[in-house]
């Protein structure tokens, strides 16, 4: 293999998009209105499209006879490296938008750095993704504001959602060994450096949304090392069902 670190690094980024894309896909046909339903599936489509580009690249450098589908569908839970934030299950719409916004802010900061990567393929995927993710953030940020600064009920629900999601935010800035190795080579992004800008942007929006910044000092982590929350197994059971039931099936 060209580089074990590069392979793991690509998957670390791509898995976040796959799992969040899957979560949003679960909402297809269940959105609170036609417009929000379509928006959710559009965002899901963008994320899964980005995932495909990353996985195709990872499959190419793996040196084995792998395809993007093998990477997406045939790994065990411990081999997925997404953060805990994106695997949190859909509850109410405010929660879904809160989760989306907390990820979108990070995602855009990441891609803006990744487009400067010395690796041409990663830079190209990032450049394309920036256009899409800016649009996602606009949508999710608008909803966090609208619900936060809305009726007493929507404010309470939005506040509860960000209180519940907040402990999953710090993991975004943890560096794995592959992250560190790739950042040193100028291929990857040092995500720990994005933390300040992230919390500034998020708390500024919370203020506009009349939401209180959660004061929790406890933060959950583990997804980046493959140690997931209970929800992940159920998500994968759904995601992998077809390939596990009918191995090698093609559409």
């Amino acid at each position, binding site marked *: 293999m060209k580089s074990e670190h590069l392979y793991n690094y690509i998957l670390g980024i791509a898995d976040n998009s796959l799992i969040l894309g899957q979560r949003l896909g679960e909402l297809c046909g269940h959105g609170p209105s036609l417009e929000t339903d379509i928006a959710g599936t*559009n965002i899901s489509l963008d994320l899964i499209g*980005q995932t495909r580009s990353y996985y195709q690249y990872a499959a190419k450098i793996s040196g084995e006879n792998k395809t993007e589908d093998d990477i997406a569908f045939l790994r065990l839970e411990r081999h997925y490296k997404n953060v805990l934030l994106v695997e949190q299950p859909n509850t109410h719409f405010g929660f879904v938008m809160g989760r989306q916004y907390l990820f979108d802010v990070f995602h855009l900061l990441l891609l803006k750095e990744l487009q400067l990567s010395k690796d041409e393929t990663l830079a190209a995927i990032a450049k394309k993704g920036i256009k899409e993710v800016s649009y996602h953030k606009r949508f999710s940020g608008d909803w966090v504001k609208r619900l936060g600064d809305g009726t007493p009920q929507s404010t309470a629900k939005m506040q509860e959602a960000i209180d519940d999601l907040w402990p999953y935010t710090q993991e975004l800035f943890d560096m794995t060994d592959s992250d560190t190795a790739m950042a040193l080579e100028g291929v990857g992004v040092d995500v720990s450096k994005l933390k300040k800008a992230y919390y500034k942007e998020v708390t500024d929006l919370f203020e506009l949304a009349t939401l209180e910044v959660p004061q929790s000092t406890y933060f959950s982590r583990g997804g980046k090392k493959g140690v997931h929350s209970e929800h992940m197994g159920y998500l994968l059971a759904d995601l992998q069902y077809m390939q596990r039931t009918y191995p090698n099936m093609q559409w």
Partner: protein
Amino acid sequence: MTGTQITIDTHLLPILGQVSDPEIPVLSVLDLGVIREAIEKDGTVYVKLTPTYSGCPAMDVIGDDLKIAFAPLGKKVEVELVLAPAWSTDWISESGLQKMEAYGIARPLSESADKDVLLAGAKKVICPQCKSTDTHLVSQFGSTACKALFKCEACLEPFDYFKCLK
């Protein structure tokens, strides 16, 4: 077609012109500007395709449609997806824009006007039915990744607006 080179063997143009975008069938892949290169070598046509949006399902279909289009001529097709430079709405040809409007989809505005419309609710998108600019955004996301949903206040018709992408 700003700043990027397109290399297409001229004898392939008539066939490529028959392959349309599955979502907007009035547009050929040439109108859309997604074909960046098409070269024939030893009976195989090598095509470089730039996706409009990362997850656009039309790209897989276009790849298959290209194979079908060249099959009767005994030519094979190899499609390679190229991500950089990223596709832009500037790459849609003028005739493509006209066909799109006639089909009922409003053409992309300039980048700054697009922002005014999608972010600040400005009334700049022209209704493809009655040509009024008394239109408003219904949803940032439309029936496909490349479009947003609008409604015209003059003729009351809903319509798609092709978002500016640069």
